[in-house]
């Protein structure tokens, strides 16, 4: 007898987060076997019936990104062919989100490709968080819920940054200005902007601060911290301009390459990331790293999606 109940499957990229979400929902993760054949092809066995059930597959775009993406696609496809009623891909950190435009001749729009691949695999719905550009929602022909880490970020600032009332919210680049102003407005704080000249991907040359941070706490806000070159330089620019302390709050802490050593050697007081991407191992090496748990938001989004309730509440509130 099918009950059209929630089934949560965890891909291998971030089982910890999936576990937290399942605990929040008061259910257990459903059984799935994910392994690789000797020729390195990914194979998946769905361990229980999903016929006529509401399936959620949690897989983040991190680590071995192509392997994890392929795994997600095969899991979706396996549930599809096993007659699931609806399949929702829960992708806290959307892979290839930065390849979202044809910024030079013959550049691929890989984010669109990933969107198409998810659709063709059989995803009926996508839940993600802080897309690099919200336009990516338009790449899909299925509904996409782009959740925000902002409410959780606000809560963190209020609770964990002592003198936040005199702080300045800083965007490390022009593209993030909207995100930063939104937070500044909500907290009723000032706002500054760093303009950077970028020569090539992951490399930054010169930075100019627009706005005043002298004698204040500066809070850098961005959607993604990868190699952290930008953040390190931005923090230095802020201190050079008289900021007393510099925090960085970032939704997706990918922290690849030399990120950990860059952070350790930077003037950053703290770097705060959400757990959309696993970073437990990096926390050991990097005492400045702090985590915001967003599993509650994901869990509530799943619950509301399942029950057909509105998720807009989550855009401005942290669920209890």
């Amino acid at each position, binding site marked *: 007898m099918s009950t059209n109940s929630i089934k949560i499957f965890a891909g291998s990229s971030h089982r910890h987060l999936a576990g937290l979400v399942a605990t929040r929902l008061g259910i257990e993760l459903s059984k799935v076997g994910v392994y690789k054949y000797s020729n390195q092809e990914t194979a998946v066995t769905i361990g229980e019936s999903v016929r006529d059930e509401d399936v959620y597959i949690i897989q983040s775009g991190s680590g071995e990104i*192509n392997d994890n993406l392929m795994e997600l696609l095969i899991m979706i496809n396996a549930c599809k062919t096993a007659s699931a009623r609806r399949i929702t891909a829960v992708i806290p950190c959307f892979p290839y989100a930065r390849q979202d435009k044809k910024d030079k001749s013959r550049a691929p729009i890989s984010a669109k490709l990933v969107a198409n691949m998810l659709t063709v695999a059989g995803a009926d719905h996508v839940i993600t968080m802080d897309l690099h550009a919200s336009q990516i929602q338009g790449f899909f022909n299925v509904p996409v819920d782009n959740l925000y880490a902002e409410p959780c970020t606000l809560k963190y600032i209020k609770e964990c940054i002592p003198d936040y009332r005199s702080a300045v919210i800083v965007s490390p680049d022009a593209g993030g200005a909207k995100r930063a102003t939104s937070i500044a407005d909500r907290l009723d704080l000032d706002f500054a902007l760093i303009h950077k000249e970028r020569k090539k991907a992951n490399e930054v040359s010169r930075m100019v601060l627009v706005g005043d941070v002298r004698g204040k706490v500066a809070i850098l806000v961005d959607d993604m911290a990868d190699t952290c070159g930008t953040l390190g330089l931005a923090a230095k620019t802020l201190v050079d301009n008289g900021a007393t302390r510099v925090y960085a709050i970032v939704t997706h802490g990918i922290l690849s390459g030399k990120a950990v050593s860059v952070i350790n050697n930077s003037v950053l007081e703290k770097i705060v990331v959400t757990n959309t991407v696993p970073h437990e191992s990096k926390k050991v090496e990097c005492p400045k790293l702090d985590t915001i748990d967003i599993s509650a938001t994901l869990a509530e989004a799943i619950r509301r999606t399942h029950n057909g309730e509105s998720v807009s509440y989550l855009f401005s509130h942290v669920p209890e």
Partner: protein
Amino acid sequence: MRRTKLFAGSSHRELATLVAQRLGHPLSNVALQAFANRETSVHIGVSVRNEDVFIIQSGSDTVNDHLMELLIMVNACKSASASRITAVIPYFPYSKQCKRKKERGAIAAKLVANMLSVAGVDHIITMDLHASQMQGFFNRPIDNLVAEPCIIRWVRDNVPEWQDAVVVSKNAGGVKRVTSMADKLGINFALIHTDRNPHRQEAWSTLSSRAPSRVPSDAEDDEEDEDEEDEEDEVVAGAEAAVEQANLHHRLASVNEVSADDAVTAGSGAPSDVSKARETKAVVVADESSGESCDRRVKQVQRLSLVGSVRGRVALLVDDMIDKPHSFLQAAEQLMQCGAKAVYILATHGILSGNALQLIETSPMVRRVVVTNTFPVSAAKRQLTSKLTVIDVSSVFSEAIRRTHNGESVSFLFDHAI
């Protein structure tokens, strides 16, 4: 070739270079890198506007990365207004996962086909698909080339006793492939049948408790792989058995007549017994596909039996791919026990993962392993054994590309080595 661009993915540049040389057409520039977060980055270095684009990318040991790379390359060319994009995929990845062989399994090969279409591929050229039915997965034209003519040519040139050899399939699923080769060489064929003790008792819990571990141990993996392979083959056999059986009987019977003195193991001396064996197998197949047969990792007692005779002859063990060689080595052992003079292993795709080549090198049963260069076999791997021969099939691909570009028929390539 005018208005044509050839691109090579990073999986198998050696083959791509050979193809380009044979076509006398240079490979075009493409920058393939990974970002710091390991996302794949592609930059097409030349204009492809209104060009006929061919992208050569095979499977490899990092199959997901290379598949993604291919998809992004296709997508980049598509959005750069290429007039037609042909993906040349010598070894089609995920081709073994081409049917739902267990409850709730994914048809990953179909998924890959869909992904290629959605990325913007207009045409696909590949070789020796695991099951030719996979051609139906695509809603684009697909040319499934065959390595058989090249392998046959190699046999004629390099196996001294080939006229008296026997082509052997190590399972029922490969019989079609083997009979076709036997016909073209004008020699006999035989078949190895795997009997299984159906003690499928291990509970589902074994698998689920193992589930979180991503890479199972080698031993388990092997078993899994073999099981999968054979189960798969059995299903194929089940489907085709009815059609093939009459024909098969006839041929097997004649084989048995020729060598009536040979005590063929496991009572396959007469056609009626053969048919009984096959009926039993059909029942097993039905069991597997209908029941809750989640325990695919069962410990099985395998008993091989040879149908046909190889006494005093050279045996050519043929299959479409060789990954872990255990089933091949078991079959080779069986063949030697049945009096074969020597065993050659012939396979199109030489995946040869893990310690496959060491096992082959140390096995006294195998004289030679022959594969084609559809799948990259690194120089380091080749050094591990002196028994490995890699046949170059780049000419088949270059000719297929030339003919596709010029709108000529490619059927010629199905029967002729070039």
